[in-house]
């Protein structure tokens, strides 16, 4: 009974937000159409970030990987005259290849090294774009074409591009959602909660982590292609570490426990940025206060608020009452099984 009510609410919520997503740009002005398009791309970025984060790694090369997608498509369409529809998957594939390349050194150790080394690797990629004329140097590429007409639908206005971005991003989100609920997703979840146990029952933890990273990067690359073609240009400046921080802030603000977390986070941050649009130089300060405030008050992110109001925490507490006194490395041992 309860389950059915929740399902009904969920369907209602999804239906309402779908309606909003489809109708909002029709009634809003050009500027907001632009912001909405970028927000949808950011949502895909944040969700793919969380997909990678699920295996335990905070990927600081996220925007650089997105840029690889954008640059690949820019090179293919501008220099070789390929179609956007070929550049789109190619961008994703190149992003995946890069993830494959750095996953070996970067995934050798746990935790901290992953984000530090991806941070450095991402910055190196950006320098390569600036350094070599092949990538257009500091000015990047201009004049990326609009997507070609398919089924008589032309993509030459902001509105049509918006719907294109929404369509592709929704498809990607759906795939990412299915992936998380699949057997692979469950395996990855168990690897994060107890790697030793997983290894002892014969799961190749490294391969699973690397494949998560690679698959997540594919979607990041796709987001990069959409971003590049929507803007019509790629420059090294657009894929800076600041953008990475913005996505990570959104993921933290929303929380990583639920699939909807990063989406909530992106919408919240975009709203905040737009409210304070006139005070642009103060926006990073606002981000800082929001991150710290959220971490101190709602460590599980905004998406945990409804659950908290119902008096439940989404993270199951270890049943040992005084778990604080137990050293961190034994927490896994005293924790009850995580599966629902």
């Amino acid at each position, binding site marked *: 009974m309860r389950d059915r009510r929740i399902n009904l609410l969920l369907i209602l919520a999804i239906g309402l937000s779908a309606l909003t997503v489809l109708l909002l740009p029709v009634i809003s002005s050009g500027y907001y159409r632009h912001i909405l398009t970028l927000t949808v791309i950011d949502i895909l970025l944040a969700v793919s970030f969380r997909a990678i984060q699920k295996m335990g790694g*905070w990927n600081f090369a996220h925007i650089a990987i997105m840029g690889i997608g954008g640059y690949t498509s820019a090179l293919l369409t501008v220099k070789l005259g390929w179609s956007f529809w070929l550049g789109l998957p190619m961008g994703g594939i190149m992003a995946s290849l890069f993830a494959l390349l*750095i996953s*070996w*050194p*970067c995934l*050798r*150790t746990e*935790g*901290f*090294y992953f*984000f*530090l*080394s991806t*941070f*450095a*690797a991402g*910055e*190196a990629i950006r*320098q*390569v774009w*600036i*350094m070599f004329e092949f990538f257009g140097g500091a000015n990047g590429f201009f004049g990326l074409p609009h997507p070609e007409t398919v089924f008589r639908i032309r993509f030459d206005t902001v509105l049509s591009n918006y719907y294109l971005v929404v369509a592709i991003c929704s498809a990607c989100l759906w795939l990412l959602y299915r992936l998380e609920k699949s057997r692979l997703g469950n395996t990855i979840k168990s690897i994060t909660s107890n790697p030793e146990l997983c290894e002892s029952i014969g799961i190749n933890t490294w391969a699973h982590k690397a494949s998560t990273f690679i698959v997540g990067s594919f979607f990041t690359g796709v987001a990069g292609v959409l971003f590049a073609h929507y803007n019509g240009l790629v420059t090294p400046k657009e894929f800076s*570490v600041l953008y990475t*921080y913005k996505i*990570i*802030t959104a993921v*933290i603000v929303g929380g990583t426990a639920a699939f909807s977390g990063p989406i909530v986070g992106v919408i919240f941050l975009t709203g905040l940025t737009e409210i304070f649009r006139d005070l642009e*130089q*103060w926006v*990073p*300060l606002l*981000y*800082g*206060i*929001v*991150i*710290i405030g959220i*971490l*101190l008050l709602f*460590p599980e992110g905004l998406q945990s608020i409804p659950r908290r109001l119902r008096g439940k925490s989404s993270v199951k507490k270890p049943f040992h009452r005084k778990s*604080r006194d137990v*050293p961190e490395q034994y927490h896994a041992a005293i924790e009850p099984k995580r599966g629902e």
Partner: protein
Amino acid sequence: MAFPNLLQLFLNGLGLSAFYALFAVGLTLVFGVMRIINFAHGELYMLGAYLVYFVFNLGQDQLTLLPLFFAGLLVAMAGVSLLSLVIERAIFRPLRKNPINCFMASVGVLYILQVSAGQIFGIKQKSLPSFFPGEIRFAGAALSIRILVTIIIAIVLLGLLWFFLEKTRLGRGIRACAQDGEAAALQGININRMSALVMGLGGALAAASGAVVGTSYLINPYMGWLVLWKAFIVTIVGGMGSIPGALVASLLFGFLDSLISSLGNPRMEILIDVTIMLVVLAYKPKGILGIAR
């Protein structure tokens, strides 16, 4: 391409290494005890440079350049370590149970400090007068006094740090915490106090490195980024949390970077450094002398 003078190369490399060491040792010290990667370390460094600038403007008329610089250095170190203590108490301590949250909070601190500095001091770049003009010439090489001062300050500060960590009771406490926090707590060492102490020391070192850089480069609110990036590579290669590792890696990258830039293309630096880092990670994941678990 003429091969650069070896002695000159050595001196430049030594100067660069001294700066890397000052910056990276603070970062790795904080990581060793608190298991936090302080992303705002670069901003502490930026504030150090600004405080020297502030003191310089304040005392420009009363004092000559040399005492002014040392007054600025002291004010910067004291001020920034005070700020670090506040950050530790207000943000890192409540979040310490989860290192990733701490790290993210430090990204928040980074934003706040960056915008504040931009608003207080202006986004326009500032420059200090050359506190240490002149250079010493010998054997075909030139050692500018500025670099000499950087090297001396680095040796003095790191020497003091070594003395403190090795020879005093408090220092022993810090080393115990870095080796094993729980065991140290069982011995009655107050981990909170050690964390605060380490944050203060790290802040002071960051401020000192900012102060020496401020005398020769332009100061702006975003100067922390670039250095932080290099410091990450240095600490990864040296091994997170290991001070000797950070020193060795600072020397390695200091000489390497000065060699690369004297060979013509300073831009290649970033690629070569990252490649080295990735290779070290692939074959020796915990760095040259790493202690991270």
